[in-house]
């Protein structure tokens, strides 16, 4: 028996699902009358569909519900190392670090911490670089300020997760 083309096979499923418009359906039914392989494939698909619909649902054991109800109190939430205590410790650490960095920056410790990286000093194959490369200047004070800002962002996330979210969750539960 000749194999049905992918295009016709796709149309067969649309036909089975009733997704062809009337003109397309009539045309397809005509093709079905003239094509034995197509009719056979339709029968296969129909057989599969009927079997699947009849046999798809599987039943669990009779005491399933009873077991679930018994186990309700034995639930262990997935353990996370991010406990409230750890969160508060982390938050204190972040704030301490940010405070020290801020004091150091404001007292001018990093004012002289500047430098430049001259890219021309890096030994690279000459054939790839025809022009002279720029120098990158680094401002130590700016770098520390960026680190302080990142720390503050991180501190806010930790504060939200450790204190705000649990607090609001508890309040919502009390309101219910």
């Amino acid at each position, binding site marked *: 028996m000749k194999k049905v083309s992918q295009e016709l096979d796709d149309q067969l499923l649309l036909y089975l699902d009733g997704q062809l418009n009337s003109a397309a359906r009539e045309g397809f039914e005509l093709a079905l009358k003239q094509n034995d392989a197509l009719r056979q494939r339709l029968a*296969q*698909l129909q057989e599969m569909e009927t*079997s699947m619909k*009849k046999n798809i649902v*599987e*039943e669990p054991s009779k005491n*399933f519900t009873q*077991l*679930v109800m018994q186990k309700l109190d034995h639930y262990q939430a997935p353990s996370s190392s991010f406990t409230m205590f750890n969160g508060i410790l982390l938050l204190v650490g972040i704030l301490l670090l940010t405070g020290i960095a801020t004091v150091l920056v404001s007292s001018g410790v990093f004012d002289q911490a500047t430098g430049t990286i001259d890219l021309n000093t890096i030994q690279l194959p000459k054939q790839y670089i025809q022009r002279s490369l720029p120098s990158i200047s680094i401002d130590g004070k700016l770098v520390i300020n960026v680190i302080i800002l990142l720390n503050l962002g991180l501190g806010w996330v930790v504060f939200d997760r450790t204190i705000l979210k649990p607090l609001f969750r508890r309040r919502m539960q009390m309101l219910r």
Partner: protein
Amino acid sequence: MTNDPDQVIIEQLLAGDRGVYSVLVNKYKSYAFTIAQKILQNKPEAEEAAQDAFIKAYHHLAGFNSEAKFSTWLYRIVFNTAISYRRKNRYQFQSIENTVIKYDQDADGNLEKVDKKKYLNQAMLKLSEADRTALTLFYLDEFSLEEIAEITGMQANTAKVRIHRARQRLADELKTILSEEALTL
């Protein structure tokens, strides 16, 4: 005031009446077990995964968005739980060739029906896990494509194409199995 019976039960549960959860478990246990079974291909394991999913759902009910459909949310938990069970027990994987498919004589005395189910199971085993799950949800006939996509974490279009191709593959596999069976008779 909501008319959704599931939502009424959820509100009772959140108010502290935990006994009513059995109504939800009874209502959804068959589909939940079916989804877990199609992923895990092992009845005791599927039963445990489905039970676990119900327990997880119960403990996370406070976070359930009441605008959403409870069944879709629950089946997503079942799907994820079954997948994590599968990952944990991957070393216990049995190849299709070595799988013994038991006749479930108690379930139905009709041999033809048992045979059909056996061949269908064999054909389903030849498909990928993702195809099996998508097909199961499709033939459970309760979910829209969007819901299937939400449960399985796929895009709706991907789910549509996957189901379409999987139906064709399943018919092909079933045909091959039946031809081989006919040859051995």
